C-alpha cells in the first residue's frame, strides 16, 4: 500500500483505538468519551424524567419499585481532533534519514488509527514554522491522501517550536490530541515552546526520535563538528573522556525532555531508529496508554 506502512502492519492496527485521558468535546459522533451525555452505550447517571425526554431511556424497573419516572443517562461518544506535528528540520535528515522515516511512519500509524476511529486528523510538517499542512480529515478513505502527504515531505530549515505552535494554534483550534514527533534538538526552552499548547488545554503526546549516532557517536581525534541546521562548526579534540561526557550528557538531555512531558502530565515515547519500528511503536504506545 505504501512504503511507510505494510499491509500486515495495517492489519495489526485495525483493532486499535486511541485513548484520551480526558473526555473530548467533539460534536460529531466518534468513539471517544464525550463531556456530554446522550446516546451511548456506557451508563453515566440517573435524573428525574422531564417531559420531552426520550422515553426509550426511562428506567422501567425503578418506576416499578419506586413509582417514579427516572431517566437513565449514557455517556455520549464523540470524535476528537488529532493534530500530528512532524519535525521536518534538517536535523531529522541525519542517520541517513532514518529519524525522519521513523517520524513519518509513526505519523502514518497514528493517522491511520485516528481515521479508523472517525477522528479528525490534521498533519503539519514544521521546522521554523509550519512548512506543509494537511487540514483535518475524517474517515478511513482519507488515508491515501495522508500517506501521499507524508511521502512528499522533505526536511529543511531549523527547528523552532514556539513560532510553529503560536502560528498554528493562534487561529483557534478545537481542543484535542497533539502528537508531536521530533528529535528535540532545539535551542530554545521546551517550557516556553509548549506554553501555547498548555494554554489551549490540548492533550500532548510526544515522540522522541533518536539515532545511534547521537547516542554514541563513532568519532575521535581532531574533528570539526558541523551543525546540520545552522551550519555552525565546532572544533573539538574528541578524547575518550570527552566522548564519555557526551554520552552522559545526551542521556541527561533525553531524560530532561522526558521529565518535562511527564511533569506536564503528557505522554512520552522514545524511539531509536535502530529499533524494530513496528514492535517498538505498538508496545510503546500501549505502554503509554495511547492505544488500546
Amino acid at each position, binding site marked *: 500500500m505504501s512504503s511507510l506502512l505494510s499491509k500486515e502492519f495495517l492489519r495489526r492496527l485495525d483493532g486499535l483505538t486511541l485513548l484520551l485521558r480526558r473526555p473530548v468535546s467533539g460534536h460529531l459522533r466518534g468513539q471517544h468519551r464525550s463531556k456530554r451525555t446522550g446516546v451511548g452505550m456506557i451508563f453515566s447517571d440517573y435524573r428525574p424524567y422531564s417531559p420531552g425526554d426520550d422515553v426509550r431511556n426511562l428506567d422501567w424497573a425503578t418506576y416499578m419499585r419506586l413509582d417514579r419516572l427516572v431517566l437513565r443517562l449514557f455517556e455520549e461518544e464523540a470524535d476528537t481532533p488529532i493534530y500530528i506535528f512532524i519535525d521536518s528540520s534538517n536535523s531529522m535528515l541525519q542517520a541517513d534519514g532514518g529519524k525522519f522515516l521513523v517520524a513519518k511512519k509513526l505519523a502514518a500509524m497514528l493517522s491511520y488509527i485516528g481515521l479508523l476511529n472517525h477522528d479528525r486528523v490534521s498533519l503539519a510538517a514544521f521546522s521554523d514554522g509550519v512548512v506543509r499542512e494537511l487540514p483535518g480529515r475524517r474517515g478511513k478513505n482519507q488515508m491515501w491522501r495522508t500517506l501521499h502527504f507524508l511521502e512528499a515531505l522533505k526536511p529543511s530549515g531549523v527547528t523552532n517550536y514556539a513560532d510553529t505552535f503560536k502560528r498554528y494554534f493562534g487561529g483557534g483550534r478545537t481542543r484535542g490530541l497533539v502528537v508531536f514527533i521530533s528529535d528535540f534538538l532545539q535551542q530554545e526552552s521546551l517550557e516556553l515552546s509548549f506554553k501555547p499548547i498548555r494554554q489551549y488545554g490540548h492533550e500532548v503526546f510526544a515522540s522522541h526520535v533518536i539515532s545511534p549516532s547521537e547516542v554514541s557517536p563513532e568519532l575521535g581525534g581532531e574533528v*570539526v563538528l558541523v551543525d546540520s541546521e545552522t551550519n555552525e562548526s565546532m572544533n573539538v579534540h574528541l578524547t575518550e573522556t570527552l566522548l564519555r561526557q557526551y554520552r552522559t550528557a545526551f542521556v541527561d538531555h533525553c531524560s530532561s525532555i522526558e521529565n518535562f512531558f511527564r511533569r506536564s502530565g503528557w505522554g512520552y515515547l522514545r524511539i531509536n531508529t535502530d529499533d524494530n519500528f513496528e514492535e517498538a511503536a505498538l508496545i510503546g504506545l500501549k505502554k503509554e496508554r495511547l492505544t488500546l
Partner: protein
Amino acid sequence: MTALSLPIVFFWVSTLLAVVAVILLFLLKPPVLQALVSSNVVWKQVIRVSQALNDRWRWWLSLLLATLIILLLLFAIYRPDLSEGEGRNKVILVIDNSPTMAARMSNGISRLDMAKNLAQDFLSELPGDRSVLIVDTQRSVAIPEFTNIALAKTILDGIEIGTSLDPVVPSKVSREAAEHRFVFTDGVLLGAPPDSYETVSVFEPISNVGITHVDFALVPGNPGERQAFVELKNAGFETQVVELDLNSEAGESLKRKIEIKAGEKIGQILNISSFSSGAVRVSATSGQDGFRFDDKAFDYLSSKKEIKVLLVSQNSADDKLLELLELMPRVDVQVINAVAYSSTVADELQPDLLIFNRVVPESRPNRPTVIFGVKSAKWLPVQVTDAMSTQVEVVKNSAHPLMRNVSLRDLIVEGGVVFGGVTDAIAPFLSSKSEGALAVTLGGVNPIILFGFDAETSNIELLADFPILLANLLTWMGDEPAVIRASPGIIAIPGDAVRVNGMDGKEYSTWTVADQTYFNAIEAGLYTITTEDGPLRVAVSQVAEKFSDVNQSRISRVVAADLTAPNLSGGFSLAVILCLLAFSLLVLDWTLFHRRVTQ
C-alpha cells in the same frame, strides 16, 4: 655574558635550524576532519563544562612552556654565570706532594706523577676563560695565586716530592673563593681533605718494608761496648725477607736477614763495637718494595777516646766517687785537694772534665765541669737559694740525655741547695716539686753540671744506677757532641754555624734567625756542621712509622690507572643541551596546542 664566545657558525646554524623547525611544525597541521551532526546543542553543553577547566590550565601551561623556551634560549645564547661573583670561573687544585706520594704504583709511575698527569688532563679540558690556582701541601709554591691555564700547567710541572711529614692544605687557599676545588692525594699523610674539596685519589696499595727507627748507644754498664738498634716495619700485605745491612765509613759491614710478616714491626739489636767512629749507613733491602725512601738511614758513631778527669775533693781518702771513676774503663782520673786546686793547675793537667766534690771553685773553670754539693758563688749563672733541711720528693726529667737508662727511683735528698732563676739555657734534670731545681745543666762551650746536693745530704752514690748516670755524664761532657737526628727538610741548629757540609763534601747554604742556624737538608745523609765549639753531626734519615705506612690511606676510593680527570661541563656543551631542551619544549608546546585544530 659569553655570547660572543660561541662559535659563530654554531650560532647561525642553530638559529636557522630552529626557524626552519618552527615553520615546518606549523605547516604540518593535520587535515581537518569534518563531521556533520544533527545538532551541536549537546556538544556545546559538554564542551562548555569540560573546557571551562581545561582552558584555564592549558593557558597557564602554554604560558609556562613559552616562558621556559625563552629562558632556555636566552641561557643558551648568553650563558649567564650564576655562580658566586667572587669565585666565578676560578678553580683551585691542591697537589699532595708529601713524601708518601713518591710510592710507585703498579704502572711504574709514582703517585705524584699520576696526580700531576691527572691534573694536566683536567687543565687541558677546562674552558679557556678559567683561572686556576695550583698549590701543594708542602708549601713549595711560595705565593699561590690564580693564573691562566698555561701558567698553571708550568707550575704543576715544577712540583716535586717534599720532605715534611705534616702536609697541610694551606688555610689561606681554603679561604679563597672558587667555583671548584680539587685535592689530588693518596690520603696517607694528608688524610681526608677538607669537606669543601673534591678528592681525586691516586692511592693504590703497594709493598713496602722500611726502617722506622735507628739508634746507636753504649751498652749500659759496659761503656766499652756499643750497639745499634734498628726497627723495621713491613707495611705491605705479604711476608718479606729483608736484608739488613750496616756499613761504616771505614768499610766495616754487618748484615742480617730477617723475615717480617705483613703488617709486623720488629726491632733488631746489633753489636757494632768493632765499628770505627764515623758515619754509618743502615739499609734494608727486600724483594718487593714500591717505596725506596725509607729503605736507608744514617747515623754517626762518636769516637771512643779516653777521658781525663780531674777530681777536686775535700777528702779524697774516703771518696766513693773516686772509686767509681777509677772503675770506668774510659776514664783516667786524677785527684787533687781543694786547697791545691787552682786554674793554673788545671791548665797544666789538661783534663777533659773537672769534677768538684763538695768544693766550689772561686772562678768559672775554662773546661767542662761537674760540681756536687754546690754552694753559693759569684760566678755561678744560677741563683743558689735556701738550703733544704727536710727530705724532699725528687722528680726526674727523663727526656734529659743524662737520665738515659737511669731511674734514681730510691733517691733521697735531705739537704743541700736549690737553684733559682732557671732560664731556657739552663736545663734541670732533677728537681723537687715543692722546692725547685736540684740538679741542672748549663750548655755552652764549656758545659757545667750542678748538683745542689752531695753524698752527705743524699744517698745518690749508693744507688745502683749512679754509675750509669756518671757514664752518661762523662759521655755528654767529654765525648763529641751528641748526634742530632732529623728528617729531611729545614733543620735548625742552636748557635751560629760556620758552614754545613754533606757526606760528599758539598757545602750547603745556611741562614741564622734568633740564635738558630737553619739549612735545608734535601735528602737523607750525614751532615757535618762546623761551629765555633767544634763539629756537630746531623744524621738526616726519613725514618718514621707514619712515613713507612704508605698504605694507611684515609681515602677509601682506589683509583684505576685509566682514571680520567673530573669533568666540568663546558659552556659550549651546556649551550647545546639548553638548545635541545628548548627545542623539545617547543615540540611539546606545538603538540599540545598548535597542532590541534580544536579550541
